[in-house]
């Protein structure tokens, strides 16, 4: 089912990209990853601890998964650049989820620094997937900078509130018909994912909604289905909305 989508030179058949944080155990994470159908997962770059406990987190990922390192925890362009370069060196990948946040309480993106970092990273050959606020004009600039996709938030990271501004997403889709739009952050339930896809998002990136569910693997299945449902609905064209009823059964012809 589901048509494929393209990012740089890679074709994905799943439109769901998921995270690797907050799981209660590696087993739960692996089960959720498998159930999600996702083909790419994002991972954070972190200082190695010096207590010798450094287990290899990456060994717990399905080797078929494409790994998308991110720059979470960076508060300015410079740190994001350094983090991206370290990630590239460690994983031998040009792919980077660019995340430059403005403060530690809201984790809301610093669009200005994100754009600055994106411009540099694209020039250095990175495939930059930038997390940013749902701002059309910034989306244009990020695309102009050479990002193969833009990743507007639905709501703050880990908030689970769902798409807070559907108008912004709808406008972004309509004004940037050729752009790849990946909604990143804020999804809480499958209907949130379906809403984003119905509005025309090309894919969804999520973490907490799955990891913090009571049953992550089952929720991952649900998200997988919802993303597909939303995509198919977008392709199929929805019925018109009406305030008033439109009879499904004939109004004439009932017995009298």
């Amino acid at each position, binding site marked *: 089912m589901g048509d494929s989508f393209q990012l740089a030179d890679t074709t994905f058949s799943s439109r769901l990209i998921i*995270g690797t944080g*907050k799981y209660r155990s590696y087993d739960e994470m692996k089960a959720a990853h498998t159930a999600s159908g996702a083909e790419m997962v994002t*991972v*954070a*770059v972190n200082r190695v601890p010096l207590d010798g406990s*450094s287990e290899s987190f990456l060994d717990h990922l399905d080797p078929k998964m494409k790994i998308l390192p991110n720059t*979470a925890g960076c508060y300015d362009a410079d740190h994001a650049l350094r983090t991206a370069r370290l990630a590239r*060196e460690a994983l031998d990948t040009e792919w980077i989820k660019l995340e430059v946040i403005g403060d530690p309480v809201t984790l809301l993106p610093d669009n200005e620094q994100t754009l600055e970092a994106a411009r540099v990273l694209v020039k250095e050959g990175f495939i930059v997937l930038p997390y940013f606020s749902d701002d059309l004009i910034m989306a244009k600039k990020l695309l102009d900078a050479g990002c193969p996709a833009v990743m507007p938030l639905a709501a703050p990271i880990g908030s689970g509130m769902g798409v807070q501004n559907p108008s912004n997403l709808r406008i972004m889709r309509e004004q940037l018909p050729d752009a790849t739009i990946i909604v990143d952050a804020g999804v809480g339930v499958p209907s949130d994912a379906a809403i984003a896809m119905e509005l025309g998002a090309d894919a969804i990136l999520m973490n907490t909604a799955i990891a913090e569910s009571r049953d992550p693997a089952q929720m991952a299945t649900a998200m997988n289905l919802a993303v597909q449902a939303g995509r198919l609905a977008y392709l199929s064209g929805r019925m018109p909305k009406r305030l008033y009823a439109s009879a499904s059964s004939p109004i004439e012809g009932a017995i009298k």
Partner: protein
Amino acid sequence: MVSFQFNGEVREVPEKTDLTRMIELFTLPPKRVAIEVNGEVVRRAQWSFVFVNPQDKIEVVHFVGGG
């Protein structure tokens, strides 16, 4: 001994310690980590040629769960 900053903390290694040796001394996993010395990534192929100098700021990163 050479005193330097390792991931934000002061550490010491013997003089003439290169990065490969530093990883061993600290019993860090050599795979899928990356090293930055004073703000510049040092490619793995160069590890044996780069020595830890006093006051160096060295960052060594690996990957952890994230979203």
